């Protein structure tokens, strides 16, 4: 066995060069990788399982897109067939990062209207499906992927009921190919108890929104009708209510954008009244009622934590500290970052959360396994465990710290994906212009 490993060692160097070429000035996005055809073994790396466990000098075996085994070199199983060995000694292996609550692939350039496909007209659009807009050929996605994000929950925006979200993997030919879990939940925006005064250049603060109670009541009325519809048959179909059926019958996730603590409490009451499974999105004030959220088992996908505090009197580092407070209280939470191109910095938010109270492995879980649990995909992704998707990233150093976070290889379902992107091409183009002798 030892001998066999040694033989493969030589090959590895060759393969990794061949597999990761800095392709020459290609103007399109990289070609999606083909299916895994052979058993592969990542050897010698430090594996961060994603659930808190770290195995040094490990072997990660995967075949047909699934992890078949993970073990330490010290517990090497003599009967194991390792297949093609990739030596990753000295490197760090992590589960692919999952970016929830994003418009990646739905928007290409913020200020150019034609490239924005994340919002539909009207306030109530539960039937619109983000996955339909998801553009596998976005020039942005490869820049996110090359930092280690392999999955995204793409989400419609705007209105009171924005539409249904889907989880996609980031190396695909088309949206069908990309979808890991299509139409997995509904996103709504909770009414604001305080509304903004003034205009964008001269904000004048906030005041109590007198329409708040009505907004909440309208939402309740709508959900009651949807619920009533869900449990009966209809001669005439209502597309909107059809799309909401699974919220009630299958306990699909209802994602609610809400930050202010009183509103969060109202959301909890609402969820209990409606009998729906709610996930808080944003949750800036969630730390104030972490015990309530833990007790009621309400998960939170935190909004951008590289953010200013909500209140001037608040701890100036509150957004950095919130994950650790939720962790300690036993809340199921994950990190997210707004926008689309920004997803490539998601891991650094986890790093900051670690600087302010989380252990590094807890911080990793907040962008991998916790996220998978909230999205109800933890049987498939989020950790490097037997039976789960062979989706991981290999980094030169600590994924969460930009000093050393350099992804050299990545696999989605066992397929080694091309980490090239437009920005690397431009870098090469101009480096060559100036520095090539």
């Amino acid at each position, binding site marked *: 066995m030892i001998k066999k490993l040694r033989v493969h060692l030589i090959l590895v160097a060759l393969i990794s060069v061949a597999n990761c070429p800095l392709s020459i000035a290609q103007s399109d996005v990289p070609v999606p990788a083909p299916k895994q055809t052979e058993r592969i073994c990542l050897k010698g790396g430090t594996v961060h399982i994603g659930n808190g466990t770290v195995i040094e000098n490990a072997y990660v075996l995967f075949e047909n897109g699934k992890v078949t085994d993970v073990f330490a070199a010290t517990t090497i199983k003599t009967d194991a067939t390792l297949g093609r060995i990739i030596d990753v000694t000295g490197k760090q292996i992590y589960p692919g990062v999952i970016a929830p609550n994003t418009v990646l692939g739905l928007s*290409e*350039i*913020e*200020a*150019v209207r034609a490239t924005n496909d994340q919002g539909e007209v009207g306030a109530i659009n539960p039937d619109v499906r983000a996955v339909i807009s998801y553009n596998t050929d976005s*020039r*942005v996605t490869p820049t996110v992927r090359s930092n280690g994000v392999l999955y995204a929950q793409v989400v419609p925006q705007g209105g009171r009921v924005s539409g249904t979200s889907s989880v996609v993997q980031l190396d695909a030919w088309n949206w069908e190919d990309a979808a890991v879990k299509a139409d997995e939940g509904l996103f709504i925006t909770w009414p604001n108890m*305080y509304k903004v005064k*003034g*205009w*964008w*250049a*001269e*904000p*004048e*603060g*906030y*005041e*109590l929104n007198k329409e708040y109670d009505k907004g909440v009541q309208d939402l309740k009325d709508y959900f009651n009708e949807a619920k009533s519809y869900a449990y009966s048959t209809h001669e005439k179909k209502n597309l909107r209510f059809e799309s909401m059926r699974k919220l009630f019958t299958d306990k699909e996730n209802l994602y609610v954008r809400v930050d*202010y*603590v*009183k509103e969060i409490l109202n959301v909890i009451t609402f969820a209990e009244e409606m009998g729906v499974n709610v996930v808080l999105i944003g949750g800036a*004030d969630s730390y*104030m009622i972490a015990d309530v959220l833990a007790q009621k088992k309400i998960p939170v996908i935190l909004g951008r934590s*590289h*953010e*200013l505090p*909500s*209140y*001037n*009197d608040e*701890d*100036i*580092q509150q957004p950095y500290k919130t994950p650790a407070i939720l962790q300690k209280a036993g809340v199921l939470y994950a990190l997210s970052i707004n926008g*689309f*191109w920004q997803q*490539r*910095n998601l891991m*650094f938010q986890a*790093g*900051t959360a*670690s*600087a*302010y109270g989380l252990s590094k492995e807890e911080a990793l879980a907040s962008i991998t396994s916790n996220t998978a649990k909230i999205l109800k995909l933890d049987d498939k992704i989020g950790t490097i465990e037997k039976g789960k998707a062979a989706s991981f990233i290999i980094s030169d150093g600590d994924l*969460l*710290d*930009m*000093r*050393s*976070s*350099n992804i050299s290889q990545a696999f989605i379902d066992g397929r080694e994906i091309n980490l090239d992107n437009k*920005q*690397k091409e*431009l*870098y090469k183009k*101009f*480096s060559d212009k*100036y*520095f090539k002798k």
Partner: protein
Amino acid sequence: MARYLRAFIVLVSILTTHYSILSAQESTFKANGPDDYRDGVHAFINATLYKDYKTKIDNGILVIKDGKIIDAGAAVSIPLGAIVHDMKGKYIYPSFIDMYTDYGLPATPKVLTRNEDDGGVQYFSNLKGAYGWNQAIRSDYEAQKNFTVNEAAANDLRKQGFGTVLTHHRDGIARGTGAVVTLNNDKENKVVVKGTAAALYSFSKGTSTQEYPSSLMGSIALLRQTYLDAQWYKGQTDKREYNLSMEAWNSTQSLPQIFEAGNWQKELRADKIGKEFGVQYLLKGDGTEYRRIAEIKDTKAKIIVPVNFPKAYDVEDPYKALWVELDEMKHWELAPANAAALSKAGIDFALTTSDLEKKEDFLKNLRTAIRYGLSEESALKALTIAPAQFLNVQDQVGSLDRGKLANFIITSKPLVDEKCVINENWIQGKRFETNKFDPKDIRGEYSLAITNPKESFNYLSMKVQGEVTAPKGVIAIDTNKVEVKLVVKDNDVSLSFDPDKKKPGKFLLTGVVESNKSWKGKAQLPDGEWADWTATFIRSLPDTSKPPKPDTIDISKLSRVMYPFNSYGNEELPKTENVIIKNATVWTNEKDGVLKNADLVIKGGKISAVGYNLSCPDCQTIIATGKNVTSGIIDEHNHIAISEGVNEGSEASSSEVRIGDVVTSEDVNMYRQLSGGVTAAQLLHGSANPIGGQSALIKFRWGYAPEKLKIEGADGFIKFALGENVKQSNWGEKFTVRYPQSRMGVEQTYVNYFTKAREYEKAIKEGKNVRKDLMLDALVQILNKKRFITCHSYVQSEINMLMHVADSFGFKVNTFTHILEGYKVADKMKAHGANASTFSDWWAYKYEVIDAIPYNANILTRMGINTAINSDDAEMARRLNQEAAKTVKYGGTSEEDAWKMVTLNPAKMLHLDSHMGSLKAGKDADVVIWSDNPLSIYAVVERTYVDGICFYDKGKDAQKREYIKHERARLAQKMLDEKRVGAPTQDPAKKNNKAYSCGND
């Protein structure tokens, strides 16, 4: 009475000569019927008379005639035939003057805020006539021509004790002149005391629909330019331009100049404008002066302040209370102490009813201010002679001296007394009743007798008690006490009572109070029979009412004034420390590189030594084993700490505006950024126009006054901008009019302005008669390398263009900021000599950044261009260390080079590197102690020093949070106490957290 007359009769003849001067009832108006001249001679005697704010005369006499004061004092003769008013127990004061009203003028217009849906964008004045170029300069407006008496409004003010006001139209930046008028209800001709009494100004353009100015700094620039224009206009002999606004401006300069500034910072700003042009403004403030009383005193300005105190916030729900910030809570507690603070500091001030929600709150609030330490004398002064002197009408009003207008109030008690009511307010000798005088005091013990043939009540004891205004009677009949219903009006008195419950039937008595205090009259008995009755006064009853408690507030127990006045301020400004930091990893940014286990000494605000085994006996020692020490981060591109507008984007060039005019010391983001190791920043104008405004270079001296934040002796910088923002690509469909709308036009804009600037400079050098133009002055400075450009830029074509323009005019573009496509023209930038200040990894937010790459800084650095990483974002600024670290990730920049991108390199491009940007003996002690390698995501700032002063300390930050928690709780409890006793409250609401950015809007 006769006694007085006799005593002073001798004096009368001597005084009559004066009367003739005063009684000039001449008028140009014709009468309908026989003339109705009246002398109106009144004498008020036995009063407690305040002749002026500090002269109190017991048993004083005031004599008026024909609307003027004849005399006031203790020994004053009463003219024969005077109508004599006995004011025993009453108080007479000069009536008040409010020098900040719009009384009798069109209502103060609502400030228009631009709504893009409202219609087009107006770049030029739409005023018809020979007026100036800007609609907000309304110097030609004359209150006197628009003033009409408004009895309802006058009545509201008279009830609060006012007799005279300065009225003006609160519209515009220059608001024209105000008139001093009385609150008399008479023909305007008689009411106007001084038609042109003062010229008024503000920062608010009011109803002007013209785009310019659109920011506070724009308002300041407009005022400065208008002073210059007016001076120039005055000097023109050959007038090519007749300008009503300029004519009026110049003709009103000798009047008192009143500036409605607003908060204390704006008062300082207004004062600075005045000082530049030799004008000492009277400043109308908003009651926040107590926060920086020393700076306010330094202005030497007279201050006009309101007495509007905020209502308590309704903080019953602690979650709702989150929306109230500590500074708002503190202001609620401290606002009533503002006037006392002004007085204590020896600042001359006047009080105004301005800004009050309800005028009727004025006296109540005034008494609150007195309870909070304002002396009665100061209060009276601020309401009488002070405003009279400020307006140069002290010969007419402000005291009860001979010859002045007969404007005075008569009150029931001393003004400071909570129960004091103003009974009468006399204006120009005319009586206005505001509250009825108390009826005659009939309280006491009486012997009541009713006589009739059938039955008689003899000598029943009757006690009359209670309030003077509502006395109650009780008669003792045998052992029973029978209540008597009493009605007293003037000398009339009526009584009714039911002596026997078993035998119902009321006795109804009516009569008069006689001079010997006894009552006498007729009674009707229950059976309809009439009888005589008397109530003989026996004696007064002892006064059982408790004297009012001297209810003064212990100021020392109130919330502390913090610097700055918000959550994370300090009670005292932190001072320089001498510190030795031992055994740290020291990032010198010098040839020595990163020193392990090294020491650093800070003394007198400077770095005194860096090296090994240093000692400093008189220093505080910090053992920093395992820590990293660096110089402070300098953010080349930051928009925090700017008040009321970061863009004056209304013209293609706004080089005349200065961020330095609107720097605020009160932005909590400064503290937050200190917690990220930032010690200095360039505060930039926005990117709305090709030529923006002048920058301010500041150090984060948290808590120091705005002027003290600025870096002494720093070079002048200015913001330029290219691309989508300046051509208004993303501003909406309305914004397609202003030139330029394309990159071609942007080039021509620059060429045009610099050509004009060169011609302007030449004309000046040739001694021609040139109007000084602040906008062109700034451009001439650029041409002469006295001011340096930081240019917002993205696309290679425009970067290339600006370098060509600069070369053709013989100057250099100092810095391209953002410069996301800099890597495409790095060779050209290198040749030109420009610096680059870029984002680490922003892109895809608009079309012009689709080719942005995170390797930009790496390529620029490798090309030998001095490169910085900037924030342009209030949050990211406190993680600039991480942003610098991204250049290690993207391109493999060395850690030392990466670190210089947020320290030494920005210092160089801001021309500050001689004393900032590295750790070297002699340089400013802008020093940060980190828990880890500063480029690491795990690095946390432990201390940040600016000039050797520790402005952020992780440990003290925790203490500050404790303070915030406890102080909020204390104030919340106090507010709830007020709510419980029925005080009005207001809903919590949040102030804005302004966070400006020019990168993505």
